[in-house]
């Protein structure tokens, strides 16, 4: 069944969109990631204009992160205070990201920017995750339990403007969380992602937050940052396609439920190595698009949307 998307102004198969939503939903349920970093490139591949894909995906992430954050709030695994501090940086970052996005769009370079961001971040995160989960698997196979290392005093504890975060059991400066929020906010606006795949490692390794509250807190602040990004894209570029978002949502909701059930049957290290491989695969695919000579050298963009 073909459906005409009112904002993207393209006609696509509704079942394809439901299927994509479902597939990414399964993955996000299995791995506990938002899936924006997979969905946005997939939308490019099926012919949705990149600007619409990025803006609409931000809107879809509002839904999936809200649903996820609710569950974490119930389990009290959200550090609300830390979430709010991250959010200050996040909203600022989303604003900056959108200015960069719109400036490069006027230069006709927005596709390149988005793709380069994807290659860089997916490449780094994918390889790090792959190496670490491979090590963890080797360790468990050799029989020795992973040693608990007491983390050295991080620089987050040495900077000024310290604040106590009871839920996380931390007493650190607010500067690093604001900077982390800022970076993820910029990426959210440019890449159409929630940024959980960067936020989560940053919270663990840079801020030293306990793993228990990391996902919930990340989801909590992603709701607001992607919500803000949605409004910014809607008011400056008119590129949020609500019909597209709803179709992706429906598939995503079902998929996430299925995925979380698959996820319980696999071991954590195996899950992480699978996710790492997937992240690397998407990275390689986008990189090849940039490196191999395209069959059509010319492209058309709508000048009136500048």
């Amino acid at each position: 069944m073909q459906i005409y998307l009112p904002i993207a102004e393209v006609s696509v198969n509704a079942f394809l969109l439901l299927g994509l939503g479902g597939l990414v939903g399964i993955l996000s349920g299995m791995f506990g990631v938002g899936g924006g970093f997979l969905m946005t490139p997939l939308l490019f591949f099926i012919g949705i204009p990149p600007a619409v894909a990025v803006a609409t995906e931000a809107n879809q992430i509002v839904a999936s992160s809200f649903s996820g954050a609710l569950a974490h709030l119930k389990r009290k695994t959200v550090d609300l205070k830390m979430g709010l501090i991250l959010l200050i940086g996040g909203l600022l970052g989303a604003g900056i990201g959108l200015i960069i996005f719109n400036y490069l769009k006027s230069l006709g370079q927005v596709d390149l920017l988005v793709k380069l961001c994807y290659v860089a971040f997916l490449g780094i995160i994918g390889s790090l995750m792959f190496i670490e989960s491979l090590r963890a698997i080797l360790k468990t196979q050799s029989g020795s339990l992973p040693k608990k290392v007491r983390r050295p005093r991080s620089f987050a504890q040495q900077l000024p403007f310290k604040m106590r975060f009871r839920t996380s059991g931390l007493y650190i400066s607010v500067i690093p969380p604001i900077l982390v929020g800022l970076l993820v906010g910029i990426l959210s606006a440019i890449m159409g992602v929630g940024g959980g795949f960067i936020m989560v490692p940053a919270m663990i390794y840079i801020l030293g937050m306990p793993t228990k509250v990391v996902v919930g807190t990340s989801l909590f602040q992603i709701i607001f940052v992607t919500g803000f990004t949605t409004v910014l894209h809607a008011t400056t570029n008119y590129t949020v396609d609500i019909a597209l978002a709803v179709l992706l949502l429906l598939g995503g909701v079902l998929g996430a439920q299925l995925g979380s059930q698959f996820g319980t049957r696999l071991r954590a290290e195996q899950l992480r190595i699978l996710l790492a491989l997937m992240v690397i695969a998407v990275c390689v695919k986008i990189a090849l698009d940039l490196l191999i000579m395209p069959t059509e050298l010319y492209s058309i963009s709508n000048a009136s949307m500048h």
Partner: protein
Amino acid sequence: MLRLILLFLISTSSAMAESVVIGMDKEKVAITATFDGSQILLFGAVKRDKPAPSGDIQIVVTIAGPSEPISVHRKAKVLGIWMNTDTVEVDAAPSFYAVATSSNFSSTINDTEDLRYKVSIPRAIRSVGAPMDVLDAASFSDAVIRIRSEKGLYQLLENKVNIDEQTLFRTSIEMPADISDGDYTARILLTRNGNVIDEFTTIIDVRKVGLERFLFNMSRENPLAYGLMSIAIAIFAGWAASLLFRFFRAT
């Protein structure tokens, strides 16, 4: 019914030696949520005051979508990466353009008349002002034609207008699903020996309707409310999903 319309059209048309009157199966194309392209059937007749001069008549039918400014980018390899390096702004290019002729294009209308009436696809674009400062501007407009032709947005349909008895003619033009809305101009040129004898234009109203129209208009006229509504829908969907999950887990 068709004949009655034609008779009516013929009897009321202006008094020229030879003039053209037309009808269409639809004057409105509604873009609904399930819009999957459309076919427009154009038919008409040639009205004559006196016997036809020698030489067969030919018909050209064009349908042009609303013109809009576009940017055409060309990629080149920079530091190993293919990126957009050259851009040509085209002041206005029709978002859709179809030309149907009753014979080969060149034998239906001659070059001078093509230039005057801007009938052929390249003329329909170039006529609205490609910049002169880019040396190979032609390759950019060629690219526009190539890309849009592949999507069925630009069509050259030679020998697709049927003429009966030098009087009645008909053609049908397919519009793909990916068209934008606006006023589409349908134009019929009556030619003999390559020269235009009469021209007739009419408007086809291509509009999003219902929900499509509501959403599109809201996104342009009230973008803040549209953005907030998008978030509200997303929040509601997220909440409904988590509610549903808990229900399923409980059972």
